[in-house]
């Protein structure tokens, strides 16, 4: 569409369409027009189908509509109809049937035709269909609210450092919402950072933190998987690194500059920094938490901070002017000045998130679970029962069917009929 990037940027900055698309987040791959169109079609389809099924499901749950109309003559013709011959004259038979199914927790009603009945197990199961499918809309509302109100940013803080609410302190702001832009007042102070290792595996990360939400100060301990939640705001520990204290001294020994420099070197990678006082110098750092030199090779014995050392390569303009390794308390002589490695602290990067929409989303999850279980675990089983009198002796015809599992219901029904027969005989004898 565009011949080069400049033309695209020009269009992007001047086009109203581009600005609208950017505003509603369509430039994000999972929010791209194609995805959105597919999602819209999906939800329209879901809405139409679900609404269309509402009357059917209500009827199936016997909440609306008339009871089915049938007669003994119809049931008799069924392939799997069960027959119970009662030796009584039939007086009070319907009551006994009612008692039996009540005991079995089946919904029991008289049918529309004379001497006909229906018994239903898990009558409200079809409502599960409606709950499950409508729960998607709650999830959609929650998801949209989260998408359009979410603020997220990464905030690195070294032990002893504080955050006073200045957004400039964020390393990066990954999501800045177009609406609900204003964040609640938040201040943080990192008291301590303590990683715990077991056999070279980071098994714990403890961060002692003071958090101030408005006027309320809260002292807390954060861990991985244990963030701080306050209303719509979450403070999550994402990763750690080290901040060595470098002190720069001139030829007379006078301190020129000093700073805890937050470096991303804990995973074995190298990082580069510069001092603001003189940006001609660049410092390339490789970090060894438990330094050892064997056969001329530098390495670390473990990832625990037992003997920290830094391999420093200093460049000035395009030349390397120093290359060497300094341990804690040692200095590197760069000619006109020295750089000493005097202290080391951990820094921790927090993910600060503020978003709304949790309640509809979680409600959607719960309702979906309930609906799914209602519909698929407690599926409906229906019995049609008709009584026919033959020489004044009643004959019971039972015809049953189950949702989903027609064949395995045959065994269940045979057992049910056997129990009903025993129940009726027992009652009669009793």
């Amino acid at each position, binding site marked *: 569409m565009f011949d080069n990037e400049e033309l695209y940027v020009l269009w992007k900055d001047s086009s109203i369409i581009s600005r609208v698309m950017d505003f509603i987040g369509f430039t994000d791959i999972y929010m791209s027009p194609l995805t959105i169109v597919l999602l819209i079609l999906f939800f329209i389809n879901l809405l139409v189908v679900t609404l269309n099924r509402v009357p059917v499901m209500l009827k199936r749950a016997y909440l609306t509509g008339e009871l089915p109309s049938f007669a003994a003559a119809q049931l008799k013709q069924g392939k799997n109809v069960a027959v119970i011959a009662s030796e009584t004259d039939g007086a009070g038979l319907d009551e006994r049937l009612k008692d039996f199914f009540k005991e079995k927790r089946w919904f029991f009603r008289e049918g529309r035709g004379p001497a006909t009945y229906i018994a239903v197990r898990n009558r409200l199961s079809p409502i599960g269909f409606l709950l499950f499918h409508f729960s998607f809309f709650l999830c959609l509302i929650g998801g949209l609210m989260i998408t359009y109100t979410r603020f997220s940013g990464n905030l690195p803080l070294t032990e002893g450092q504080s955050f006073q609410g200045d957004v400039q302190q964020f390393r990066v702001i990954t999501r800045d919402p177009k609406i609900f832009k204003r964040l609640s007042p938040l201040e943080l102070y990192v008291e301590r950072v303590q990683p715990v290792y077991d056999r070279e595996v*980071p098994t714990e990360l403890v961060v002692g933190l003071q958090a101030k939400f408005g006027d309320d100060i809260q002292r807390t301990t954060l861990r991985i998987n244990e963030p701080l939640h306050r209303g719509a705001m979450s403070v*999550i520990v994402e990763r750690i690194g080290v901040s060595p204290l470098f002190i720069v001294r001139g030829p007379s020994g006078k301190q020129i500059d000093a700073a805890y420099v937050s470096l991303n070197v804990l995973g074995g990678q190298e990082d580069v920094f510069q001092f603001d006082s003189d940006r001609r110098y660049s410092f390339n750092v490789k970090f*060894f938490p438990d330094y050892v030199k064997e056969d001329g090779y530098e390495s670390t014995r473990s990832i625990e901070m037992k003997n920290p050392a830094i391999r420093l390569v200093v460049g000035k303009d395009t030349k390397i002017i120093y290359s060497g390794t300094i341990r804690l308390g040692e200095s590197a002589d760069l000619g006109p000045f020295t750089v000493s490695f005097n202290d080391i602290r951990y820094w921790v990067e927090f993910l600060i998130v503020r978003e709304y929409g949790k309640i509809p989303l979680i409600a959607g*999850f719960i309702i979906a*679970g309930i609906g799914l279980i209602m519909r698929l675990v407690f599926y409906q089983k229906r019995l049609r029962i008709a009584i026919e009198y033959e020489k004044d002796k009643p004959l019971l015809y039972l015809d049953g069917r189950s949702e989903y599992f027609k064949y395995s219901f045959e065994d269940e029904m045979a057992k049910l009929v056997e129990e009903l027969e025993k129940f009726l005989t027992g009652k009669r004898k009793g």
Partner: protein
Amino acid sequence: MLEDILTWSCIYSYTIASILLLSGFVFNKEKLLKIASYIVVPAFAAHTVIFVMRWAATGYFPANSEFENAITGGWFAIGFTVYLFIKNRALTGVALFTVPASLLLLGYGVMKSPDPLPLAASLKSSWLVIHVLFAQLAFGAYAIASGMGLLYVLKDRRMSRDRMSMFYKKIPRLEVIEENMFRFVVYGFIADAIMIVAGAIWAKDLWGNYWGWDPVEVWSLISWLLYGLSIHLKVTLGWKGRRLAWLMIFLLITVIITYWGIDIVVENTRHIFGVTSMPDLMQ
């Protein structure tokens, strides 16, 4: 030491059982299926001991490495198979699918990392048990559904021929196989849904968002939606028979991609947990 002995006993037992099951089906020998079931049941007992021993030794639900995931995943698949042995002997044939699948899983796990590792900070959450337990339950149920699909297709093919051997006559009716297949799909679908929801809630605490469009998340959603679609195809559109059976066989591929495929192929998934050391520096 005991764990090693039991693990290799399981592997050898499942290997022999797989050979017997395959031979039984190829040569129509019911006796071989019976012998296989006699091997699988004690092997499953040993499998259970490994599962419990690992849990007791590490103090966490076994889901911290490929080996532990293989032990747990295989345990559910074989557990469902043994349940079927007891409930309906005629459905022993399902093992033709689940036993070799569990054997491959175990073999892969043993190759990767059998030694117990401390639980990484990212996995220290009560959601781990819920998320992984339901994931493995879903896998076990879907694997059984695929096994039923295979059984259905094999019997259906034999029935279309003139004469059916006694071997296939003893396998339950096609309708019964189909119903059982659907039952396990439903079971897996519910477990899968709980797994996804539990994962989303856990992800909020660990990564700060319920859904991050991570490859594993996307594939788990694809897999769940496809199984949901298969339920709709059966219940609403009346799909049945051979095409439903084939669908169930092929749908398991989506679960395998989600659980194991992504970790092998994709490097930037946030679902790779475990050790963060400094291999370059420690050499």
